């Protein structure tokens, strides 16, 4: 069976220890976490956890069932294959020598990024988009010398008039 990337959107009780239950479940059973993003929802008692994981269909089914089995997990939705919006934010600190500045700015513009910090020798760029877009800009900027990167990991929501989570 083939491994596939899945975006899971998980609603959990906003309580201490919940993240550790989920992380423990994944490490204990040898499942993958590619990225993980957690924050409170509009209901302060509930947090949304967006996770990118990978596995074949049998593993994915187990992952979803195992998550649902945790008492603090309210709902698990697999967005993959649905109509959804995915966003990720990245901060890229990049070497910006005088001769490269124009080219870097042009790439930044194409990706609708923003320069959030400037120095004599560097730029910090902030870009949002789905992970493919983020990967693309990182690849384009690599030749100029990326100093540091911070990525948020994906967050995602269903488009309206789909089953909601």
């Amino acid at each position, binding site marked *: 069976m083939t491994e596939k990337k899945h975006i899971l959107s998980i609603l*959990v*009780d906003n309580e201490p220890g919940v993240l550790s*239950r989920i992380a*423990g479940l994944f490490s204990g059973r040898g499942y993958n976490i590619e990225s993980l993003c957690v924050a409170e929802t509009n209901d302060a008692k509930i947090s949304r956890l967006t996770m990118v994981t990978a596995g074949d269909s049998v593993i994915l089914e187990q992952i979803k*069932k195992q998550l649902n*089995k945790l*008492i603090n997990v*309210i709902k698990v939705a697999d967005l993959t294959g649905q109509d959804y919006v995915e966003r990720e934010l990245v901060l890229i600190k990049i070497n910006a020598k005088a001769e490269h500045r124009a080219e870097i700015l042009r790439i930044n513009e194409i990706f609708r990024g923003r320069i959030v910090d400037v120095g004599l020798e560097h730029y910090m760029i902030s870009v949002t988009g789905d992970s493919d877009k983020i990967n693309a800009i990182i690849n384009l900027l690599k030749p100029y010398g990326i100093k540091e990167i911070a990525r948020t990991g994906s967050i995602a929501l269903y488009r309206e008039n789909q089953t909601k989570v």
Partner: protein
Amino acid sequence: MTKLTGSQILMAMLKEEGVDTIFGYPGGAVLDIYDELTRTDLRHILVRHEQGAIHAADAYARASGKVGVCLVTSGPGATNTVTGIASAYCDSIPVVIFTGQVPTRLIGNDAFQEVDIVGITRPCTKHNYLVKDVKDLARVIREAFHIARSGRPGPVLVDLPKDVSNSKVIFKVPDEVELRSYNPTYVPNRKQLSKVVELIKTAKKPVIFSGGGIILSKAHRELADLAQKTRIPVTSTLMGLGGFPATNPLWLGMLGMHGTYRANLSISECDLMIAVGVRFDDRVTGKVDEFATNAKIVQIDIDPTSIQKNIQVDVPVVGDCKITLEILNQMIDHEDLGNVEESREPWLHQINEWKKTTPLKYKQGKKIKPQFVVEKIYELTKGEAIITTEVGQNQMWAAQYYHFDQPGRFITSGGLGVMGFGLPAAVGAQVAAPDKFVIDIAGDGSIQMNIQEMATAVQYNLPVKIAILNNGFLGMVRQWQELFYDRRYSSTMFQHAPDFVKLAEAYGAVGLRATTPEEVEPVLRKALSTPRAVIMDFVVEPEESVYPMVPAGAPITKMLLV
């Protein structure tokens, strides 16, 4: 309104949950709770080691059908329960464990006897709580009992900081629990069940494969009804023993690594397997790729994670075993199955042939055979005793040669396989069933792991009987070394052993010994007629092995036979 301390709330809530007996061991962090205990009519059984408390609570739950409760102090008291919690988790036994904790203001400071027991037990509890505010206590206790006993049962731990147990709050009995994130599915999907009915109608060689879920959901009558009216033979896991009467002609015996020849062959030959309350553990399936390859598989379980985990099934049914079988039986009653007596005849005949040619057997010898001891125990107790076991060969011989007709009679650490389980389990079972014979079928190795609980048995006048199958070896490990490591007995032979008869006497119990086959019955009779705790030391054939045996990872048809 009056204010109550956390300890008083705990007592009130235990009463509210119908608890009358708890197993525990005191310490600094639970002093207030223990003090409060003196002002209640709760029965507290003081064990001699916290592992004893949790195993006893586990067995108490199985023998009584209630939730077992265990109370221990922080730090080492709490960590000593971890093995037992993990065992109860594997076997899906409803227990609630209360652990003391250092005061909330000290948590995280590496205080004396502080340990993050909630962190430690996260992967081996169904759920756990750290109560940080006495205001939450009553609700948490209510939730803990609800979670422990509902759905697929399991252990729930509640960590109680010392300031929570001694500070006061207005107490009100909380309403029934409502957890938006926890709603087990009890009632199955009927569409799935009609598929099952269709499969039953066309199957020529069907088998029911039952497990601990039958016992946990008390579905034994529904199971017997299903088997009887469809004439489908039944095999079960270790945890399922007693879920179907072993004296019923449709009984195949246990399956798996030490299963019967006919059970294992039936599984590989069957064209329909109805699995109820099982999780397809590797000790049962052997090599997964060659497990029941000819069969359509139906799996009924209340826990969706148990379905499609190890084995791909054709008809998954999520639901409580009892409710599901009840509905299935009703649906079958409205169907015409034809003359099942006749249509099942060839299959049942085949199974009988397997039973005739290759029954469970052992060879008698000059020395006592351990299987013979178990057979005699069965005979003399007429199958009515509660049997607990340790782990190893003793456990397997108990499963093979004591024939269980009723649920709740076989209490063993199945999933985790904890040596040292049997004696404290016997204590817990005897507390729950004071009028029954409770017998721990033990190994000479395992019994030494929680032997201190003899003192508990004697203190509370619990007339438990310990039958040590004393082979001088860590027998089950020795057996693997004999078969797969050219008899290199690395660290499995005891060079020294205590005199178990004197040890019993030192504890204030009765000690008996049998060294020849002729002495077995008199010793057992003496023990059964002694209204006190008794240790029987059966000096058995040292190198006897458990057969049939399926080597680890082999298909279950590849049995080594006697």
